């Protein structure tokens, strides 16, 4: 399979309150690959995610998805990814189903695909009886499930997932893992952050390790296994 990069981060630099959080970060995520972004607490994993989503302003560097530059065509760029944050970002004004409707319209998801996916995902994530509830009436795990379904509704080239298994129960976690692999096989690229090293082994094809805001190593996941065994992580 010929690999072509979907996400390209080049020389990305982020400064928050006069502190360099990311320093010359460069890496790529190839089409149909799952890349795990790993590193210690405070290494800059979530910052990378926020920079890719455009929530954080860059001090330098470029980010593009499918060749669409974040700085040059932001509105089109946003159609290239969907994001599952570590903490659910649901609106208090909308019920779970209404959130799905917002995603449907925002990503222009056809009706038949939307209904089909809602049925399948809500059933699998055991959210069927919570569809008409407001976020505050749900547990954190349920909110996380709702947010996960939102991000899985559109067919986008890149899925960004910050700590995907945080807050999910075992069954939901296993189902999400299966879904991510299916999406990958269909050609979706996935960038995820996780602290769970066994998930990196089971799920990821590639890894990027961050250390103090810099990329310390990157490669295929087998190389990560060797790093792990040497205790270098």
């Amino acid at each position, binding site marked *: 399979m010929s690999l072509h990069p979907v996400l390209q981060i080049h020389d990305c630099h982020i400064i928050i309150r006069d502190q360099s959080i990311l320093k010359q970060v460069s890496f790529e995520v190839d089409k149909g690959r799952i890349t795990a972004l790993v590193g210690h607490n405070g290494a800059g994993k979530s910052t990378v995610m926020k920079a890719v989503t455009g929530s954080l302003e860059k001090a330098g560097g470029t980010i593009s998805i499918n060749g669409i530059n974040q700085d040059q065509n932001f509105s089109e760029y*946003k159609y290239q990814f969907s994001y599952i944050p570590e903490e659910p970002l649901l609106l208090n004004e909308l019920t779970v189903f209404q959130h799905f409707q917002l995603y449907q319209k925002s990503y222009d998801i056809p009706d038949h695909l939307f209904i089909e996916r809602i049925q399948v995902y809500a059933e699998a994530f055991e959210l069927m009886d919570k569809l*008409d509830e407001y976020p505050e009436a749900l547990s954190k795990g349920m909110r996380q499930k709702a947010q996960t379904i939102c991000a899985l509704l559109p067919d986008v080239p890149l899925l960004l997932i910050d700590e995907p298994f945080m807050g999910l129960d075992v069954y939901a976690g296993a189902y999400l893992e299966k879904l991510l692999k299916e999406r990958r096989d269909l050609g979706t690229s996935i960038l995820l952050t996780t602290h769970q090293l066994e998930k990196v082994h089971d799920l990821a094809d590639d890894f990027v390790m961050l250390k103090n805001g810099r990329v310390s190593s990157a490669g295929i996941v087998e190389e990560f296994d060797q790093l792990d065994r040497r205790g270098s992580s």
Partner: protein
Amino acid sequence: MNFSTWEVYCWVRSQRLQKKRNLYQQAFLVNFDITVIVYCLIFGVLLLFITADWLDRFLPLVESSQAQIQQVVWLLPAVVFLRSCSQSFFHSGLAFTTSELNMSMLPHTRSHLLWHIALIRGGMHLAGAFAAALLFGWITPFTYSFVFYLAAVFSLFFILTILIQWKLFSLSRWQKLSSVVTAFLFIAGLRYVVSALDLHAGWVGWLLGLVLLGVNIYILPRSLQGVDWGRTVEVNDARVWNIKLISHITGTSIKPPKRYGVLQTFLRSRRAKQRFNEIHQLYHRLWRHHLHHKFSYVWKTLLISAVIVVVLPAQTYWVIYISLPVAVYVYIEMAASLFADQFQEHPLLNIIPIEEKGWLSTFYRWAAGGLVILFIFFAAAVGFLKGFHLAFIIQIIALIFWSMYDLHLRLQERVNVVQQKNIQVQEVLRLCGYLFLGAGVYVSPVVLGVFLPPLIKIYLNKRPFYRSAA
């Protein structure tokens, strides 16, 4: 080594104060000059001496007013009591925050913590009241005995109402309201009985004090029963960390999330949970909530518009030539800011693609609705001041056209900013439109000039080199 609850609470409190002090210091250093502060302090002290000297001249007047105030001191307990009842609608009085709640998970009971908070609050108010009395007695010609007497009455009743406010806060709004009404009726009844029995008015205070003491004795063992901890902590967190200077300077206020009042209950009715048949319903829902959340800006904008379109021209009519364009401009800028705010406030709307057409058309309706009020203001001002005539019809048509057109452009401009698009803005044409609008109120045919900027824009867009530059 075991620390007592008091020691731990004092330590946490001192750390909190230190953190707040650091924040205040930072805010001060950024915004004030040390030399200016020193000068202000010196002049402040001098001012106090001058005031004391100046007030001495009014000694006879103050002496007579002191006697008058003494006649109505009996009102002070009632005022303090009613004040605490009304304050219970907003906060519990005792700053039981998340930190205290977390401390209660350690071997420190909530009742002990509550006692310490109450003790410190009572003590601080006592010290504050007497310090204020001392200062007042020194500066003003009121006698020390009189001001200390007032401070003592205030402090006594303040302490007696601390627990009452705490308990009332966790009750429902209706229960609180009925408590306030009952308290008011009780005090009125007490006053009636005292005057009917021809007793000294001070008896009202004494009797109220006894009743409050009884209520406190009743509440004391029940102070932790039925407390809405979630709300208490939420409100107190916002109060404790709402550092006034920083809030003022940054123009932000940390308010506890609003509870669901009558409107919110309606907004969250079963009907509101229904799935949308049409996506515009969803956008309208989000705009309605957003505008409700930002209502203070909405009403202030409309009020300012009313003042500059109706009130100012009522004083001097020619002002309307300037005030009308200014009012339209202010309104549209504010509407555009509120529009962009929606996307900046919600992190979710930051990360998903924005379906421009739907968001724009739905907000346009809300903003246009507000503009109608502005048109009514203008019609009322012209009607009252000049009377309706043919020129007025031309003016109102031009006003409606220009306002709607400019609103459309501004919203498009803001959505471009949100979408980080680089689009050229034609400010000169906009300025011309507003000039025509203002001049058109003076010489009505000129108002037709507001149709020129859109026509020029269409013409410019047809020119290929200009289109590519834009």
